């Protein structure tokens, strides 16, 4: 009986994921309401529960997709994968007025460049402090701190060893997790409460998943603005890191 139910869960994996996430969100909103009296947003709790489950899933299976590597929860990978995530992010843009985007346009572009450079410098500085001295490793770790997609792109194009590339991916993953967790806490202190600052925020942070989740847990109305600029970040990072930034690192070290 139970076995045949589990088989159904595995077969209808996407539907099972809908039910599972729905249940997890119900519990998270209940905790938010009863235990924190609404001070911690329900979706922030749900995201942290998701991350914790992903950690245990990753340890249990040794795979790279968190809880989605357990075949019973494979649907989570499809539901939270790039395809549906992008579709949902784009849907949030419906009804946004273009004027609000144009007003913050220049600041958003400045934020993009500044965001890539600041994250890169932070990564290079920490790598230097830990004893890395060769420009290739420094650049790759710096690029990984930009986002976990830029790290391997830059590393591959300047010939970094695989352990450094793995480290750069880890730095990028941490960044997106930290943005998810810290954004709702920091939002009030950095004035993240209007479309304009959300666009600047998206440009500075850049990690699409981090910005998407962080803003969702802060104020869902801000999501389209942050996501709009954030989606240009990885491309810009992939453009700058192996070229201009690598040359700059070589010139300094």
């Amino acid at each position: 009986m139970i076995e045949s139910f589990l088989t159904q869960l595995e077969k209808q994996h996407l539907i099972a994921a809908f039910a599972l996430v729905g249940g997890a969100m119900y519990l998270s909103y209940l905790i938010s309401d009863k235990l924190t009296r609404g001070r911690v947003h329900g979706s922030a709790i749900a995201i942290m529960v998701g991350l914790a489950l992903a950690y245990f899933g990753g340890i249990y299976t040794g795979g790279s997709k968190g809880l989605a590597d357990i075949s019973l929860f494979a649907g989570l990978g499809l539901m939270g994968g790039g395809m549906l995530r992008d579709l949902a992010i784009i849907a949030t843009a419906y009804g946004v007025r273009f004027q609000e985007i144009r007003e913050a346009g220049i600041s958003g572009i400045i934020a993009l460049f500044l965001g890539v450079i600041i994250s890169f410098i932070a990564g290079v500085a920490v790598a230097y402090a830990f004893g890395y001295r060769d420009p290739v490793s420094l650049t790759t770790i710096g690029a990984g701190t930009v986002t976990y997609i830029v790290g391997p792109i830059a590393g591959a194009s300047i010939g970094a060893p695989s352990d450094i590339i793995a480290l750069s991916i880890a730095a990028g993953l941490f960044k997106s997790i930290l943005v998810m967790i810290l954004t709702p806490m920091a939002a009030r202190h950095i004035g993240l409460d209007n479309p304009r600052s959300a666009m600047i925020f998206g440009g500075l942070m850049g990690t699409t998943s981090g910005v998407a989740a962080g803003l969702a847990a802060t104020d869902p109305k801000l999501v389209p603005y942050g996501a709009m600029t954030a989606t240009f970040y990885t491309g810009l990072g992939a453009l700058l890191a192996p070229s201009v930034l690598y040359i700059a690192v070589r010139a300094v070290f």
Partner: protein
Amino acid sequence: MVIYGVALLAGCMLVGLWAGDVLGMLLGVESNVGGVGIAMLMLIFLGGYLMDKKKMPASTESGITFWNGMYIPIVVAMAASQNVAAAIDGGMIALLASLLAVVASFALVPCLNRLGRAKSEKPRPEKDEPTALKQDTRQRKSASSPVSARPRHAR
């Protein structure tokens, strides 16, 4: 029909991501450059145009608003399928590098916010003393809050 809304959304996504790929190729980058952002802009313009033409009945709209509403659950599923274990394996360098980057970027949000505001106020004709300028920013702040509080589908 609901499917019209979903199809409009899907069409924007496909064309946007394709444009992002082409942009990446033109720039010589192995990555999609702003595909989702381009798709969002397309949806804003196409959706706005159709709404103005009264070609967006509630049923068509619901095909888009459904996916809008699924956004947070999808993000939760995304969080649950992140490679958290690998991040923790990366150890202190990875944690410190990203923490420093995130904190520095957070700190820059208010700076850039102020910078852009000051600039956009420059072309105003009357030259007023700082107190008047402060009042002006306060007014703009209070003016912007009802805009964001308004339901997004009201036009």
